[in-house]
C-alpha cells in the first residue's frame, strides 16, 4: 500500500472544510479565528504536498510560500485577537451575531 499525492490532498481538503465549517458556524469571534487558522493550515499542507510530489523546476517554491503563509498567519492572529479585544472593550461581547453596528 502506498501513500500518494491524493491522500495528502484529501486530508488537506477535509481539514480545510472543517476549518470553513468552524469559521462559518461559530458565534465566538475567537472561535471564528480558530477556524481561519485551520483553513490556513490545510492550505499549507497542500502547498507542501505539491512541493514534494508535483513536477516542477523549482520545488522549493512551496516551502517558501508556506514560510510566508505562517508569517502572515502570525500577524493575522495578533491583529485579529487585538481586534477581538478591542471589540470586546467597546461592545462587551465577542459574539459575532451581536456585532451589528451597521444594522440600524
Amino acid at each position, binding site marked *: 500500500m502506498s501513500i500518494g499525492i491524493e491522500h495528502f490532498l*484529501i486530508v488537506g481538503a477535509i481539514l480545510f472544510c472543517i476549518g*470553513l465549517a468552524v469559521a462559518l458556524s*461559530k458565534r465566538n469571534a*475567537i472561535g471564528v479565528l480558530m477556524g481561519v487558522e485551520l483553513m490556513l493550515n490545510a492550505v499549507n499542507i497542500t502547498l507542501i504536498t505539491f512541493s514534494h510530489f508535483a513536477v516542477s523546476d523549482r520545488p522549493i517554491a512551496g516551502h517558501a510560500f508556506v514560510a510566508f503563509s505562517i*508569517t502572515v498567519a*502570525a500577524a493575522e492572529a495578533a491583529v485579529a485577537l*487585538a481586534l477581538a479585544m478591542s471589540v470586546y472593550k467597546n461592545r462587551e461581547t465577542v459574539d459575532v451575531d451581536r456585532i451589528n453596528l451597521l444594522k440600524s
Partner: protein
Amino acid sequence: MEGFGPTFGFYAMSALTLVSAGGVMLSRNLLHAVLFLIVTFIGVAGFYILLSAEFIALAQIIIYVGAISVLVLFAVLLTPRAGRDNGETKMALPGIFLAVCLAAVLAFVINDTNWATVATSPELTASSLGEALLDAWALPFEMASVLLTAALVGAIMLVRTPEEEAEDALR
C-alpha cells in the same frame, strides 16, 4: 511513499489531525477547543515531517504551538467566563452544509485529476529554503517583515486604553 512506516505515519497523523480538528468544531468549552487546535497544529507538523519538510515542521511548532496558540489562550482568558462558550450561530447549518458540499467537490476533483508526480522527491533543506527566500523571493521576504512590523504596531494601537492615549496626547 512506500513501506509500513510512512503509511502508518500518514494514517496516524490523519487521524490525529482530523479528529482534533473535529474537536475544535464540537467542543463546547472554548478552552478545550483551543487545546484541540494545538493538537491539530502538531498533527499538521507531523504531515510536514512526512513530506520531509523538517524546517517548516519545526517552524510550525515554534510559531503555531509556541506563539499563536498562546495568543489565543490569552485572548480566551481575557474574556470573561460568560464569553467562553463555543456555541454556534443561527447560520450554523447552512455553513456546515456549504462546507460538506465543498468537501465533496474537492474530493471529486482530487480523485478525478490525473496528477503528474515525480518519481523521486527533490531534496529540500533548510539552507536551500534560505537561499530561495533571499534570492528569488527577496521582495516578498522584505514585505513580510514590513507586514510583521505593521501588525505589531497595529495590534499595540488597537488594544491601547483611553488613559494611555490621553497620556500620550499630553506629551
